[in-house]
């Protein structure tokens, strides 16, 4: 555990590295192939777009706070909900998981960098360009009623609404092309993670001694390979239809809109598991450290993660219960969807069992992970409700579904991302985030989240569909919508506090040292921030918690691990 910091040019030391000008500093970021810098680039990119997509959400909630509102025109509202969804899934979700993955995976397995550093840089810049291209749509061209050409066909872009006949402008083209480009970036990142985890582990780190976060990144990356690619294929088909006069989804030529639906959801469902699995990995790192216990049931957790990935590829048509599949088809997908709840439930039980008998310290990372456990339980249960196909015939495309997936994406995924920030920010920057601001962030966000998304379940059950820019005053949805919007405001304030915390703590945060949380995985053995080469000597490990073994030489893990 070297405590010395060697001044290395190009790293993030706050000590000025011998006269580097601003231009040289910027240049070092643009040309870097260092996984840590690329990870930070991904994460900063994701944070910027989190704020942008959050602003889009706020605008929508202002529009929906009262019935028959005129804050946003229908065209702009439709662009906003399409962009909010597309941005959050691709520009925030996918980038942040590969950002955190890029940063941590080599450190956690005792490697110097990723397997393919240049592919790493290429993947990032492709994704970054794709996202910027998507946002260029707001200003590129006049579009309908001068609203710009941002995609406005929902983030699942059903055919034939996306056909040139029904959407003659360039909105859909921006959507398809930017995501095709980002898809290749994601593919590169996934290939890199797999190659790194399989080929660059330090001595002694068998696959079953990898930290669970690395396992989850491996499973995520494997799933990504067969998840993003169907979307790319479908979007290529869409572009062929729109630009080369193809007929893939042209009902009059014999094509079928329902084929788009199948292809999109074959991507779309495993995609949400691609997003949530790294969040599970984060929880699996934070919860043990703050409970002061090893994770309960490591092999079961690995098996459950792989199980989730496999089963998730068989459930996609639960997004299509209302399209007129046969009763046998509906029954099959209802069953497979219920089955994916089983390995997911197992994970929740294992996390609770980890906390059982522990000495739980509720620092901010643990606050977020505990709330995650509660919210993910609720999300799973509403997911089971939606799996019950006849009930889904009522709930599909209603605000109940929006509530469900925000419980999984905001209440579970984002909460775990926040936990990751509070947990690893000290490692990345060398400073602790303010606990005080962290607690403000947590409680405000928790309250706002529940105010918004608990209420949303009810307005959905009262018949309010999604994707509507306004609603009638006599449907009984007014008060509920108002409170949903209020909750949104509270969440926005919490996120701003978080952003302020990130900025302020960089300069004024407490010095972190190597291992502020008394944790057990390899990244905590390096200085904070780590030098460019990560490890002065290649580590050799003998168990899942190498630092535990060092701190407890009389009671090391390798005596007990299965």
């Amino acid at each position: 555990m070297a405590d010395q910091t060697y001044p290395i040019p190009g790293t993030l030391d706050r000590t000025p590295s011998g006269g580097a000008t601003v231009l040289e500093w910027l240049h070092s970021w643009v040309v870097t192939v260092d996984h840590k810098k690329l990870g930070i680039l991904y994460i900063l990119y994701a944070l910027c777009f989190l704020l942008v997509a959050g602003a889009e959400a706020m605008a929508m909630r202002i529009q929906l706070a009262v019935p028959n509102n005129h804050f946003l025109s229908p065209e702009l509202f439709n662009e906003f909900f399409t962009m909010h969804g597309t941005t959050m899934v691709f520009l925030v979700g996918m980038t942040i998981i590969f950002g955190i993955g890029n940063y941590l995976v080599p450190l956690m397995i005792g490697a110097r960098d990723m397997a393919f550093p240049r592919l790493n840089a290429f993947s990032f810049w492709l994704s970054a360009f794709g996202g910027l291209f998507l946002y260029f749509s707001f200003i590129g061209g006049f579009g309908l009623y001068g609203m710009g050409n941002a995609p406005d066909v929902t983030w699942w872009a059903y055919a034939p609404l996306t056909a040139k006949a029904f959407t003659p402008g360039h909105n859909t083209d921006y959507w398809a092309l930017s995501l095709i480009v980002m898809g290749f970036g994601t593919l590169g990142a996934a290939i890199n993670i797999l190659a790194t985890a399989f080929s660059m582990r330090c001595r002694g780190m068998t696959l079953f001694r990898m930290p669970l976060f690395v396992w989850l990144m491996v499973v995520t990356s494997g799933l990504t390979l067969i998840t993003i690619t169907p979307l790319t294929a479908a979007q290529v088909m869409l572009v062929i239809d729109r630009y080369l006069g193809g007929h893939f989804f042209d009902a009059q030529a014999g094509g079928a809109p329902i084929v788009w639906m199948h292809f999109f959801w074959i991507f779309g469902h495993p995609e949400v598991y691609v997003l949530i699995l790294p969040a599970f990995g984060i929880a699996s790192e934070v919860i043990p450290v703050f409970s002061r216990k090893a994770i309960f049931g490591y092999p079961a957790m690995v098996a459950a993660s792989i199980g989730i990935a496999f089963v998730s590829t068989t459930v996609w048509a639960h997004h299509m219960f209302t399209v007129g599949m046969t009763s046998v088809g509906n029954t099959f997908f209802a069953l497979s969807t219920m089955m994916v709840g089983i390995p997911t439930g197992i994970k929740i039980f294992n996390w609770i069992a980890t906390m059982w008998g522990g000495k739980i310290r509720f620092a901010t990372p643990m606050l977020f992970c505990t709330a995650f456990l509660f919210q993910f339980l609720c999300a799973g249960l509403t997911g089971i409700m939606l799996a019950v196909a006849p009930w889904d015939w009522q709930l599909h495309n209603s605000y109940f579904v929006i509530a469900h997936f925000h419980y999984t994406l905001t209440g579970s995924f984002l909460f775990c991302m926040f936990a990751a920030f509070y947990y690893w920010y000290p490692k990345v920057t060398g400073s602790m985030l303010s606990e005080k601001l962290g607690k403000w962030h947590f409680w405000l966000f928790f309250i706002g989240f529940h105010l918004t998304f608990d209420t949303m379940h009810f307005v959905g059950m009262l018949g309010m569909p999604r994707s509507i820019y306004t609603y009638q005053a006599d449907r009984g949805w007014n008060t509920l919508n108002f409170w949903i919007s209020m909750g949104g405001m509270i969440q926005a304030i919490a996120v701003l506090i978080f952003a302020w915390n990130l900025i302020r703590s960089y300069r004024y945060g407490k010095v972190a040292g190597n291992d502020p949380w008394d944790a057990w995985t390899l990244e905590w053995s390096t200085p904070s921030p780590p030098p460019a080469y990560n490890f002065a000597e290649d580590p050799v490990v003998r168990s899942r918690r190498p630092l535990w073994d060092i701190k407890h030489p009389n009671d090391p893990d390798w005596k007990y691990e299965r």
Partner: protein
Amino acid sequence: MQRRRGLPPIQPQVLIPSLLCTHALRSVAEGAMTTPSILKPVSTPANEIFHLSLFVLLISGAIFVVVAGLLAFVIIRFHERRGDAEHEPAQIYGSAQVELAWTVIPVLIVVVLFLTTARVIFAIQDAPEPKSALDVTVIGHQFWWEFRYPGLGIVTANELHVPVSTQQRPEPTYLRLLSADVDHSFWVPQLGGKTDLIPNHPNEMWIDPLKTGLYRGQCAQFCGVEHALMLIRVYVDTPQQFDEWVKNQQQPGVQDSAVAVGRHIFETEACMNCHTIEGTSAHGTFGPDLTHLMSRATIAAGAATNTPDNLRAWIQNPNTFKPGALMPAMQLSDQETDEVVAYLTTLH
């Protein structure tokens, strides 16, 4: 507190004739429950779904209580206390028996849930169509609903009339769902789950409303700019009301010589390219059938109430109520618009 002078109780002899009048029917229905809640089913499919949902809620609730309870217990009981000894707690790495237990129990729960679900799926989707069923073809357009009754020779728009179905006289309505352009979805929560309208992919659903009244719904699959204002009104009529309505709808358009000017404008301007009025030369199918326009409570698929002023504003510029609606502003002079509105308001 002064005693308010009460109104005399309404006599049935006064009430029933009023009810038979379409206008009165509308206002009574307006006062009825207008929230399209899935928790207030009035039709067998919606009822089946509701009862299934209660069962699922019960199971989910039980799971929630147990797991959230465990979580709460763990948070409180194993919270780090000040002055805790410096050593770490006992490290427990796992337990095969526990893992087995909490795998088997969820599997059993899934089996129960699945069997119940499958039963309801088959009961609703594969219910055989009885001979007494009323057939309605629903065609989704951007942004309005076309309703055709093939057995009765009726074409109307946006407001569906169906007979009430009782134990003694079961009369379900079977809807055949088609689309003229993009994907839509027919959703009237109190009458049943939603089913999509997909071009070149006919779908079917059925409802058997057990209580008269007006039930609201709207399109539930994003179909473009004005998806939000593609509303549905379903009037569940008593048998007599329904027969009255059918008879009226089967008549050709009212021929009132007082508004011949307006009718002439309608037939010679672009109106006839998109709209049909039976008994005139207007046979367009791109827009709603207007033969009995005044029998409807709303225009523009619920975007505005059906009043002469709204009709005028709509014809002058549809973007007033529904920016992005596919009907163009008709560029008629004020005088012409007045004539046309006067004509349309005779079409009962």
